[in-house]
C-alpha cells in the first residue's frame, strides 16, 4: 500500500485534479520569471481580481450546463446583452434596470432550455442560434454606440471596497459557494450530475429531466446576465466588444478546472482554479506583449487538449 497511491492508476484517476494544480504552479513560476513585478503589489492583485470575478460568475453557470453534458454558446452574448440593457436603461430606471436585465437573461435561458428539452435539438445548435439573437438585440438596443455611465451608484455594485477588496470579489465568491452548495447537497444538484452521467437512466428513475434541463439553462443564463451587470458596473458602461472572444476562454477555464465535456464528472468547485489559470495566463501573455490573436490560438489549443484529457477514461473502457 505504501507505494500504491502514486501508481499509474492513481495518476490517471486524478488527472483532472493534477493538471490544473500543476498548471497553476508552472504558470506562477514562469510569469514570475518573465516579469519580476508580477503579483508584487496589492494593486496588481486587485487588478487581477477585476479581471477574474465577472468571468468567474459566467464560468460557474457554464459549468452547470457542461456538467449536464450540454453546452451553452450563448453565455458571452447574453452577458453582452445584459450589460447593454443595464447601461442603456440605467439613466431611466436606475437600479431597477438590473431586474430587467436579469429577467432578459432568464428569458434566454428559458428559451434555450425549452427548445432543447421539448424539441430534442442539440444544445449547441439551439444556443448558437439564440446567441445570434442576443447579439442582434444588443446591437439594436445600443444602436451600436458605447454607453458610458458615470453615476457613482452604478459603479458601486462592483467597486465598493470592503476589507480592502472590491465588492465584485465577494459577488463572485458568493455565486461560487451557492453553486457548490446546490450541486453538492441538493437533489437538484444531484440531478444535474445524474443527467450528465446517464440521461436515459435518470429519466427512467422518474426524474423530470426536461424541467431540470430547462432550469439549469435558465440558471446559466441568469449567471451570464449577472456577470454582464457586474462587468458593466466595473467598466462604467457597456460597449459592443463586451464578451466578444470570451467563449473559448470560458470553455477553457471550465475544462482546465477538470469538468469533463461528456458531463457528469467534475464540478463548480473546480472551475475557480480553471478561471484563475486562464485569466492569469491571459494577463501574463498580454503583459509579455503577445498579440491577442496569438493568445486566441493558445486558448483554443488549451481548450482542445484539456477537453481530451478530462474525458473520463473509465467510461470509454466500459463502453467498448
Amino acid at each position, binding site marked *: 500500500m505504501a507505494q500504491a497511491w502514486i501508481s499509474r492508476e492513481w495518476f490517471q484517476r486524478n488527472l483532472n485534479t493534477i493538471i490544473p494544480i500543476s498548471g497553476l504552479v508552472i504558470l506562477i513560476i514562469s510569469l514570475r520569471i518573465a516579469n519580476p513585478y508580477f503579483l508584487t503589489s496589492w494593486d496588481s492583485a486587485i487588478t487581477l481580481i477585476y479581471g477574474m470575478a465577472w468571468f468567474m460568475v459566467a464560468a460557474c453557470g457554464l459549468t452547470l450546463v457542461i456538467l449536464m453534458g450540454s453546452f451553452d454558446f450563448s453565455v458571452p452574448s447574453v452577458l453582452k446583452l445584459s450589460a447593454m440593457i443595464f447601461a442603456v436603461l440605467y439613466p431611466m430606471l436606475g437600479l431597477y434596470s438590473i431586474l430587467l436585465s436579469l429577467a432578459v437573461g432568464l428569458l434566454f435561458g428559458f428559451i434555450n432550455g425549452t427548445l432543447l428539452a421539448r424539441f430534442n435539438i442539440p444544445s449547441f445548435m439551439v444556443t448558437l442560434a439564440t446567441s445570434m439573437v442576443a447579439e442582434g438585440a444588443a446591437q439594436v438596443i445600443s444602436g451600436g454606440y458605447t454607453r458610458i455611465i458615470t453615476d457613482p451608484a452604478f459603479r458601486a455594485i462592483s467597486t465598493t471596497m470592503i476589507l480592502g477588496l472590491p465588492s465584485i470579489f465577494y459577488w463572485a465568491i458568493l455565486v461560487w459557494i451557492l453553486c457548490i452548495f446546490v450541486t453538492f*447537497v441538493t437533489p437538484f444538484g*444531484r440531478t444535474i450530475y445524474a443527467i450528465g*452521467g446517464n440521461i436515459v437512466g435518470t429519466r427512467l428513475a422518474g426524474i423530470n429531466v426536461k424541467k431540470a434541463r430547462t432550469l439549469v439553462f435558465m440558471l446559466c443564463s441568469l449567471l451570464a446576465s449577472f456577470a454582464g451587470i457586474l462587468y458593466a458596473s466595473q467598466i462604467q458602461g457597456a460597449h459592443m466588444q463586451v464578451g466578444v472572444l470570451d467563449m473559448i476562454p470560458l470553455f477553457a477555464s471550465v475544462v482546465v478546472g477538470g469538468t469533463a465535456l461528456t458531463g457528469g464528472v467534475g464540478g463548480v468547485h473546480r472551475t475557480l482554479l480553471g478561471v484563475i489559470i486562464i485569466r492569469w495566463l491571459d494577463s501574463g501573455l498580454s503583459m509579455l506583449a503577445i498579440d491577442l490573436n496569438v493568445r486566441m490560438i493558445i486558448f483554443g489549443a488549451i481548450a482542445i487538449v484539456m477537453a481530451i484529457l478530462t474525458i473520463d477514461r473509465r467510461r470509454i473502457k466500459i463502453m467498448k
Partner: protein
Amino acid sequence: MNVGDALLEVRNVTKTFNKVVRALDNVSIEVRRNEMVSVVGENGAGKSTLMKILVGVYKPDSGKMYYMGREVPFPENPLDALRRGISIVYQEKGVIPHLKVYQFLFLGLEDRFTRLGRLQLEKIIGLARSVFEELGIKCDLASSMYELPLSTQKMVEIARAILNIKLMVGEGSNITPIIILDEPTAPLSLEERDELFSYLTSLKKSNSFIFVSHIIPEVITFSDRIYVLRDGKLTAHHDVRSEKVFEEELFKEIVGRASYHELWARYESVKVRDIDKKPTVLSVRNLTKRGYYTNISFDLHEGECVGLFGPAGCGKSEIARSLYGDIVADYGEVIVDGKKLKLRGEPHTRVRMGIGYFSGETGKELLLFWPIRKNLSLVNFDKVTKSSLKIVSVISFKAEKSLAERIMNKLRIKAPSVEAECYSLSGGNKQKVSVGKWIERAPRILILEDPTIGIDVGAREDIYDALLEMKKNGISMILVSDDPKEYALLCDKIIYIKEGTSQAVYTNEEFRKVMGL
C-alpha cells in the same frame, strides 16, 4: 465420436467473467459437415458466450479448438474467424435499413470491386444476382433492405455471411462455411419461420449451421443434433436423426427439473386467494400503439402480478414501457385509482402516481460511475433529504448511507462498501442495485422488464426473494420476460400476446400446465 467426423470442434471450453461468474464450464461441442446443430438454453445459459468464442469476440480461459481434426488456436477476432470459414448472423441490428439489397450484400467488400476508385456497380449487381440465384433468394436487388419481409432480410444476411466467407477464403478453396444463427426466428411470424427453415435446409448441401435458440418446437423439427446448455454447463446432447426427442423432455433439460416444485411452492406461499376481489389499482382499456400492439385491456389488482408473455418482438415490452410513459401509446385508457393517466406523460408523472419501473438491460438504468449510495437515493430523494431550511431540501449523507446499507443487506449486494462505484460490480450485483432503488420507495405498482436477464443463479434468487416479499406486502406488478419460469414463479395471471394482440389469459396453474412446468 470420432474426431475425424467433425468439421469444427471445441473441447473443454471454460470462460469466466469478472473472475467470479462462470459463463462456460468445461463445454465441448462439435459441428459436422452439412448439418444443422442447435445450441439451446435459457438466457444466461452461456449460448452467446460460446458463440462469441467461436467467432473470436471473446477468448476462453481454457479449452482447445480443432478444425478438420487438427488442433488450431482460437480465432483472435471476427475477421480471423471469417478467414477460417466461421461467420455469425446476429439476432438484431445486423441490417442497415436504408441500404439497397446489393449495397448491403457487399458492405465492407467494396474495395474488392473497384477500379481506379470507381465502384463497379454492374459487376456487383451481376454477382449479387448470381449469388441470389444460386442460394434461391427471390427479391428485387434494387429495393431497400427495410422494404423486404423480415424473413427475406434474414436470408440476405445469411447470404452475406456466406459470400463474405467465400471472398475471404478465396473462391477456389473447398471450404464448408459454418454460419452461426443467433436466434434468427425471434421476430418472425410462423409462416416466415417455415420459409426461413426451408431455405436453410436447402443451404445445408454446401454449408453447416449452428442454430442458437430457445424456441423448442422448431429446434426439434429442423436440427440434426441438439446441445443443451444450462448455467454454463453442457447438460444434454441429442441426435435427432437417431432418437426421438420430446418437447417436454427438452424443455425440462433446458430449465432444470429440480427447481419446479420449489418454484410452485414459493408461488403458492405468497399467493392470495380471490385476488380478483381485491381493489383494482390499474386498469388498461384498449391501449393501442400502431405497429406494436392493439387493443390491450386488463385489470391489475392489489398485490397481483400480471405477466405479459409472448415471443420477442410481440409488443409486450412496448406495452410495459407505454404504461410507464417511456414511450407514448396512440390511444386507449390507463386508469390508476379511478384517475385517467395522460398517455403522453413522462416517467416522472408515473412515479408520482406510485408506479415504478425496472429493466434488467445492463447499464440502462444505473449511473455506472456513481457509488451505490447515490444510485440508490436517486428515486428516494424524499427519504434522504431534510427540509429544515424550509426553502431548500438538503441531502443528508448519513441518511443516504443508512438507506444504502439497509438495501444492501436486504438484497445481499456484494460490494466493499456503499461507496463502491457501480461499474466495478458484477452483473448480478448491478441488477440488485437497480431493483433495490424501488424496494425502499415501495411503489404501488412495479413494472418489471427482464428483471433477471443474464445474471447468475444466486443473484437471481436474491432478486426473486425481494420481489416475492414486495408482492406479499401488497405491491402489484407487471412482468415482461423471456423466461417462462419467471412467470410461473411470480404471476397470478398471464396474458399471452402474439403479434401485438392478446390471445389468451391463463391463471398461474393453467400456464404451468401449458408450458409443461
